[in-house]
């Protein structure tokens, strides 16, 4: 099953590698690693979010191994999608393989398409789609949007992203 883990690593070389060992030992397949270097904690540690595919029963073992290695485990459990965002696509959405477009987001492990509405006015006319993407955090939303932007360029789709509430 897909699980996410929020860890805090010491800001010294080799810590990420150290944190990976318990995951390897317990046969966790890593889907994504987001290293929030810009969000250093007041304790001087660096938050890292792992999304992994692993047997849930091994989770406690992983946690205690991490703790014994000096890694702080802030949270570990099922993937929680805490951010979501609306996007509109315009173009030949079905002909350019909608399944693939969605899969490019879903396969990240940190984001997924959760809602989809499609309007097709005519065979040769561009169709329009509304979709909602949810992700495990703001950074992941940005990554998912940049994937979608890239897909849009490849498939000649107009990608209409939401305006952000705050300055970047």
């Amino acid at each position, binding site marked *: 099953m897909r699980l996410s883990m929020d860890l805090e690593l010491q800001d010294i070389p080799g810590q990420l590698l150290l944190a990976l060992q318990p995951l390897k030992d317990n046969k966790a397949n890593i889907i994504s690693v987001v290293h929030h270097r810009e969000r250093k904690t007041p304790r001087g540690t660096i938050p890292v979010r792992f999304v992994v595919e692993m047997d849930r029963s091994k989770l406690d073992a992983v946690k205690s191994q991490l703790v014994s290695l000096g890694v702080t485990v802030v949270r570990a459990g099922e993937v929680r999608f805490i951010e979501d965002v*609306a996007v509109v696509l*315009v173009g030949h959405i079905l002909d350019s393989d909608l399944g693939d477009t969605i899969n490019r987001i879903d396969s990240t492990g940190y984001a997924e398409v959760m809602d989809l*509405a499609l*309007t097709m*006015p005519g065979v040769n006319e561009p169709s329009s789609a*509304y979709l909602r993407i949810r992700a495990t955090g703001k950074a992941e939303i940005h990554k998912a949007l940049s994937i979608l932007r890239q897909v849009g360029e490849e498939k000649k789709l107009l990608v*209409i992203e939401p*305006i952000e509430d705050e*300055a970047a």
Partner: protein
Amino acid sequence: MREVKISLVGYGVVGHGVVDVLTRKRAMMKELGLDLKLISVTDHTGTIISEDGIDAQKILGEKTLTNVATSSMKGKEAIDAIASDLVIEVTPTNIVHGQPGLGHMEAALAGGKHVVTSNKGPLVVAYSRLKKLAEDNGVMLKFEATAGGTMPLISLVERTLVGNTIYGIRGIFNGTCNYILTRMAEENIPYTHALSEAQDLGIAEADPSYDVEGVDTAGKVVILANALFDMNIKYSDVDVTGITGVTPEALALAREKGYAIKLIGDVPALTVRPTLVPVGSPIAVGGTLNSAAIYTDLSGTITVSGLGAGSIETASAILSDVVSIYRTKRIDAIF
């Protein structure tokens, strides 16, 4: 009373507005201690000069100066020859080479004359060069009317919000695009229909590409980035997508979910793109209105909106720039 001799270069829609506004507001400006005297107007056909001030009634009815010109001087020649304190440059915008406005502004600044303009082209092409030329000659270059028309944006950031760190500015900077998108959403009509309607109303040009392809908005992004963020960028640094690909179906889908689609320019991201904006957001204005959200550290987000174009509206921004030049002088004199 401080007398300011003004030369106007460019006598199109905005030029007429400037003559009208300078005439209408002359008494009010005198109360502020400024005698704004329009001593010459130049267009592509010639120049009319009057040391005592141009009689607006005589020229406002004329489309060009062909019938009223008192001299055949044009452009730079007129700027060099006429002893004015300030040049208002409102010739047509060319965003590729900036001419003829760029040459006019260079001549004026090099001649020690302040420049106030609504012409984006020269600023997009050569902002840092013009700014340096102004500094070297101890004069000012003011261009509030180039970004957001009458909506206060540059002066708002430079003066009123002074002391704030500006994180970014996002907004609707083109009234033509906003009108087209608003009508498409309201009436569920395709882009081409809304465009024809805008053309019939004189809101869109016969060749609308400059507006609808996002070129105009990108020009404003360049000006804001250079003037307010010291970015020293060119037009080609902006990632531009226009509105021609937006469908009424996309607008309808967005609206069902609580969003409008607007052409948004973003500084310092340097993008111009159709963007989803929540319907209740203060920047989601309709019709030909422009709007801008300014993200600051101390004041949070400030949003302004107003008419982005129009003869009198643009002239209003120009008048405000003219006055600000002499107010600044007065403040400087204290120190």
